[in-house]
């Protein structure tokens, strides 16, 4: 098949066995690659109720047909496993340059099984695959690991690694690459740590065949001019995601003080202008013409970011208006291998528990000194970190505060206040991996667009359409910052693969991916009872800013959810019917 290497590398760590197999062609027709194909493989291969941190869980790395080609914004890698944070399906994506390197090494995907007997790393150099001891790397931060491996294997090597958080099996541990890029959510780094794998080093020297190269070249250049490098996408280059701080503040959805408010007095210290003033460089992923990455520096310490999610969750949500402090918190989390969205939420939740007298963690909104001690305490389970490492859901079970424990299915909230964007509430509740903004982002149409944010009407269809769009985009695999149409996507996909793709077919693929993910979760016991939001969203009114006086009334939420199930053809418990599964060839 054009666009694919038609090869899956399977590494059984327990048995030190390395094998190669043909990529399942039937599944690529139905799921394309990346997110969709990875979820299909995990669904078929994982036994229900597998312990996510046991050797029986699998860690899968999937590219897509665009990976490694000239298609812009296609530099992402999908990483799939059962989540230690939520026990749901978990797929993350990571940017940088690792995905094309894997493809150039000759593989569409790598599947890790079992558990290495000793701390190890995997070296993939084209057909040569080795499992090597990682004794000197174990215990080190992600940045030091990447530097050591680049020095050993040369700077053309590409590396995935975990930090101490992954080694210590934390539910917010991430996988890093290119120093500052993360597959961040749901504890994907803990799955890698549970397999005793500190890093994966990849060197590839092959190439990828597209079906119609001359026309692909011409078409890509046309779309670059007319569809990519336009006002609609170039915000990612000029400002990056920090731009969203101002938009969120103006619309009252900037999480502040653990989502007690939707606006923050110190927002101007965290916005794109402030980040721009601290900027020392720019960076883009492989094949990206946008280059959304911003390097900022504090003293002699540098970070790529902070991105909006970090500015919001580790900034305003913790009451921190000092950009230097957020940069340092970001850098610590990156090096320790920890998701800033969850780390920021946990810190803010602990601050509110302390404020309300439910449990004294010694943390206070706006107190930089104690705030900066949190990442290391969590990563090493040191002192208060032993409890903070449990995550918001478990902390609430232990100390109370469930009403303001901002999580869904155990995954902490991204940086958008649902009381100012009701569709976002539905998106969090129905996302396949818990509270997530990457499955659908109705904020753009509601808070930042023309659709009324404060009505349940039409929101189910809006969220469903966006979920299908993102599911298919992340299966090809493209970055979400290119706002391309499905027409464009179908045209490029046809030229790369030689198969005929249509908009209707892609919409069906999106629906299929969402449904197979739902089936995975259903098999794990998830249903309607889990598709909900914390009490704060239903019962508390925001008191300041553009969303003052707003909540998301529970009956309105229930209406959106019921509409959502009806449109999806799921039953009243949110379960995928056999008829729907059959219709979609699941």
């Amino acid at each position: 098949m054009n666009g694919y290497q038609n090869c899956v590398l399977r590494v059984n760590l327990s048995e030190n066995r390395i094998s190669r197999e043909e990529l399942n062609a039937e599944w690529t027709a139905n799921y394309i690659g990346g997110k969709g194909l990875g979820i299909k493989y995990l669904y078929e291969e994982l036994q229900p109720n597998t312990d996510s941190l046991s050797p029986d869980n699998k860690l899968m790395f999937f590219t897509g047909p665009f990976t490694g080609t000239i298609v812009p914004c296609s530099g992402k890698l999908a990483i799939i496993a059962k989540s230690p944070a939520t026990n749901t399906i978990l797929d993350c994506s990571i940017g940088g340059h690792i995905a094309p390197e894997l493809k150039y090494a000759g593989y569409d995907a790598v599947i890790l099984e079992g558990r290495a007997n000793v701390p190890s790393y995997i070296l993939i150099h084209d057909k040569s695959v080795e499992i090597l001891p990682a004794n000197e790397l174990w215990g080190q931060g992600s940045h030091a690991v990447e530097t050591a491996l680049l020095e050993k294997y040369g700077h053309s090597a590409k590396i995935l690694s975990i930090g101490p958080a992954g080694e210590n099996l934390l539910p917010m541990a991430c996988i890093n690459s290119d120093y500052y890029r993360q597959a961040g959510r749901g504890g994907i780094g803990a799955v890698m740590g549970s397999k005793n794998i500190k890093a994966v080093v990849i060197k590839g020297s092959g190439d990828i065949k597209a079906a119609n190269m001359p026309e692909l070249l011409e078409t890509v250049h046309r779309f670059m001019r007319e569809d990519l490098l336009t006002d609609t996408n170039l915000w990612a280059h000029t400002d990056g995601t920090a731009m969203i701080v101002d938009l969120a503040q103006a619309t009252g959805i900037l999480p502040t003080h653990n989502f007690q408010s939707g606006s923050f007095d110190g927002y101007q210290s965290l916005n794109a202008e402030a980040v721009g003033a601290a900027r020392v460089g720019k960076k883009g992923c492989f094949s990206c013409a946008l280059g959304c990455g911003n390097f900022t520096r504090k003293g002699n310490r540098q970070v790529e970011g902070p991105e909006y999610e970090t500015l919001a969750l580790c900034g305003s949500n913790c009451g921190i208006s000092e950009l230097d402090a957020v940069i340092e918190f970001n850098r610590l989390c990156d090096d320790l291998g920890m998701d800033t969205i969850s780390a920021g939420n946990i810190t803010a939740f602990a601050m509110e528990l302390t404020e309300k007298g439910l449990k004294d963690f010694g943390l206070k909104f706006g107190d930089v000194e104690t705030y900066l001690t949190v990442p290391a305490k969590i990563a090493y389970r040191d002192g208060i970190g032993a409890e903070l490492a449990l995550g918001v859901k478990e902390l609430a079970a232990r100390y109370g505060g469930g009403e303001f424990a901002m999580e869904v299915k155990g995954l902490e909230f991204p940086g958008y206040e649902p009381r100012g964007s009701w569709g976002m509430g539905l998106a969090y509740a129905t996302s396949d991996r818990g509270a997530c903004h990457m499955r659908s982002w109705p904020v753009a149409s509601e808070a930042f667009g023309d659709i009324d944010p404060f009505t349940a009407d039409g929101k189910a269809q809006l969220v469903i359409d966006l979920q299908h769009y993102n599911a298919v985009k992340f299966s090809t695999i493209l970055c979400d910052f290119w706002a391309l149409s499905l027409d464009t996507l179908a045209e490029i996909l046809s030229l790369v693969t030689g198969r005929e793709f249509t908009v209707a077919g892609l919409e069906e693929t999106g629906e299929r991916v969402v449904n197979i993910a739902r089936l995975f979760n259903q098999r794990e016991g998830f249903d309607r009872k889990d598709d909900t939001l914390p009490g704060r969203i239903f019962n508390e009114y925001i008191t300041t800013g553009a969303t003052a006086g707003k909540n998301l009334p529970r009956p309105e939420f229930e209406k959106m959810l019921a509409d959502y199930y009806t449109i999806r053809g799921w039953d009243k418990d949110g379960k995928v019917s056999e008829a729907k599964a059959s219709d979609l060839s699941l």
Partner: protein
Amino acid sequence: MAVHITVTLGGPLKKYRLAADTVDVPPGTTISGILSTLGIPAESVSLLVLNGSKALATEVLKDGDHITIYPPVCGG
């Protein structure tokens, strides 16, 4: 008597900026009128913020107003 307003453009929309950020416009000018004057295509605009709050393009500008115009954003 002219209405004195300030216009801020977000991200890539800066290329549409006027000679000065603060300008005088005729009474009755709407935000939509400013967008036309600047030559910003409708599809290049998402959020309009007037004096810190979300605004509609039909709103009439008053003396001292500050309008910020943002392009569409995606992802998050």
